[in-house]
């Protein structure tokens, strides 16, 4: 799965993961430092307070005396709502303060401040204690002064700082993720541009992709171009082969047909003339079938990857009418063209082929000296090219059947046809999201075939 996931998403996820890790780390560090700083501040104040009390120790009439200076406690009051305790002892003897305060009884050098953490009265406290020798009479007495304070203020401060740090980290994370998404998209843009350039191409456009690409994409681009080159070559080869094959088959057929026409000029016996006509008909039949089979194959191939160019049906209709006018004139059939602009999205070659098949059909099945009307119309959503003839109609064969492969109608006696024309037209229209409508012409015996396509 991971191999096929989008590179952009993977890159973004990776960068986001790194950002998350950094955010958590920085949050942890800032919280830790904040707590340390708060604790150190408390320690300093406690030490100062304990030292200040210790400074007031003196001996008076064989007793140790001390004063609790106001400043010693006002310093401590600065830190939140915490409760303050003290404890003064001379050696093992408790002198004043809170007797139960869990003081340190480690040996220590006078003047140095020792710190400890303990519990008192159900609350966590921080204790600073300092010793000072006091001469009582001639005997030096070691007096220890301990000042303790609960830690809720410190906790509150460090929690507050930690909360701020968390907010900052989240903000950092969001910014980092946004930036990584932008970075991923920016660095993938050349790749997307190449993909777009290839995707926008028509089905038969196999020219090499000439585009500035970052060097990381150069190998991909050059192998893509080599592939296109090979594909173009193989298509060219198969097209050449089809052309060559058609040429080899149709040239002798043309010779046969021409010779038969020449023979018809000099032959008078009616049964021989009839035989020559049969030859000509058979040649026409085979060449027509071969042509339409080829067309059918081309259509099937082009429909697979349909071009979506802007095509004006009016232009195509005019072209088809011009191309088939001589054919129609041979039967004294007049082609009437009425157009209005009707733009659709599609493959001009295929649409041309579809219309030509329909029009060719109409000419083939129309009697001499009639009209075929070709009208291009566009309403709100659909473009229509209707081809209406004055022929004998569809007979009793359902219209849907006529679109089937090799299916021919009932009024086809004596007319050369392969039964593929309407199939091709119908396939082309379906590929374009349209349809081929077949029905009787209004107010006449004829047939109307309509190519219906969604408007552009």
């Amino acid at each position, binding site marked *: 799965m991971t191999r096929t996931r989008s590179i952009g998403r993977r890159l973004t996820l990776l960068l986001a993961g790194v950002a998350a890790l950094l955010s958590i780390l920085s949050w942890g560090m800032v919280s830790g430092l904040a707590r340390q700083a708060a604790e150190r501040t408390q320690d300093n104040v406690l030490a100062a307070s304990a030292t200040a009390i210790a400074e007031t120790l003196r001996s008076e009439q064989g007793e140790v005396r001390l004063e609790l200076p106001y400043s010693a406690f006002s310093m401590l009051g600065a830190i939140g709502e915490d409760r303050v305790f003290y404890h003064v002892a001379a050696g093992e003897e408790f002198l004043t303060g809170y007797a139960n305060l869990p003081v340190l009884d480690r040996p220590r050098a006078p003047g140095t401040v020792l710190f400890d953490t303990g519990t008192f009265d159900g609350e966590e406290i921080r204790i600073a204690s300092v010793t000072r020798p006091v001469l009582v009479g001639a005997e030096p007495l070691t007096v220890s002064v301990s000042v303790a304070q609960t830690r809720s203020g410190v906790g509150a401060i460090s929690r507050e700082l930690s909360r701020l740090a968390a907010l900052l980290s989240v903000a950092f994370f969001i910014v980092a993720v946004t930036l990584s998404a932008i970075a991923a998209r920016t660095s993938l843009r050349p790749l997307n541009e190449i993909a777009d350039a290839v995707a926008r191409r028509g089905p038969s456009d196999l020219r090499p992709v000439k585009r500035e690409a970052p060097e990381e994409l150069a190998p991909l681009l050059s192998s893509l171009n080599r592939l296109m080159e090979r594909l173009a070559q193989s298509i060219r080869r198969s097209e050449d082969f*089809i*052309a060559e094959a058609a040429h080899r088959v149709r*040239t002798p057929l043309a010779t046969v047909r021409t*010779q038969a026409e020449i023979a018809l000029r000099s032959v008078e016996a009616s049964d021989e003339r009839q035989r020559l006509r049969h030859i000509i008909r058979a040649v026409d039949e085979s*060449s027509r079938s071969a*042509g339409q089979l080829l067309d059918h194959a081309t259509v099937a191939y082009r429909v697979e990857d349909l071009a979506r160019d802007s095509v004006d049906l009016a232009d195509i209709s005019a072209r088809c009418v011009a191309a088939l006018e001589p054919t129609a*004139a041979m039967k004294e059939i007049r082609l009437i063209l009425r157009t209005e602009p009707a733009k659709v999205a599609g493959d001009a070659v295929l649409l041309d082929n579809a219309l030509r098949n329909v029009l060719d059909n109409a000419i083939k099945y129309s009697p001499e000296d009639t009209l075929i009307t070709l009208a291009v119309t566009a309403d709100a959503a659909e473009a229509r090219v209707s081809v209406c003839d004055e022929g004998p109609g569809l007979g009793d064969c359902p219209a849907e059947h006529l679109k089937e492969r090799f299916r021919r109608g009932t009024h086809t006696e004596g007319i*050369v046809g392969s039964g593929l024309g309407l199939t091709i037209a119908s396939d082309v229209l379906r590929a374009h999201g349209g349809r081929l409508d077949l029905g009787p012409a209004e107010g006449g015996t004829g047939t109307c075939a309509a190519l219906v396509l969604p408007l552009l």
Partner: protein
Amino acid sequence: MRYLLVEDNQELAEAVVKRLVLDGHAVDHAASLDEAEACLSAADYDLILLDVMLPDGDGRDFLARSRAHLETPVIVLTARSQVSDRVGALDQGADDYITKPFDFSELEARCRAVLRRRGGSARNEIALGRAVFDPFAGTLRLGKSLIELRNREIRLLEVFARHPGQILSKGQLLDRLFSYDSAVTENAIEVYVGRLRRRIDGTGVRIETVRGLGYRMETEDP
């Protein structure tokens, strides 16, 4: 009318030449693009029939190359009915194309359409008695009046005009006028000959019925 046929298949070329000569046209045959160039520099042609696959190159490349200085209309003979091929031929300067094997009536119809589009040329006009017949424009000019003929009338008149004094059987006329798959009888010829007689009334030529044999066009005695 003078054709240049560029076709490398000897048998087809011979047949086409013979067939066009039967219709009273002059045809030169070139078997390669080189020969075609030589013919074009030596003579003027009304129309070029160009095969696409030739031994010394593609006919379409020849078209693209020579279109700039070549004024003669070109009809491409293609072996493929594939649309892309047709469109390609037209894009490269062909006036029209026709798929092998082709019907000579259709070829004529296409030549006529091409020459009409190109404005035709006066040397293809045929004098018919006191009138002048232009088979490409489909008109018959008699003094100041211009008669427009219909398609089959043009073709029928052209057949008669190119074979003056010759007896043409109904069967022959039928083959020239109708495609080989249409189920018409020789009576249809009588209808068209009747129409044509009315059209050429007063021109000084007439179509006689030769009992049991067919028809013949004759110039009236003055």
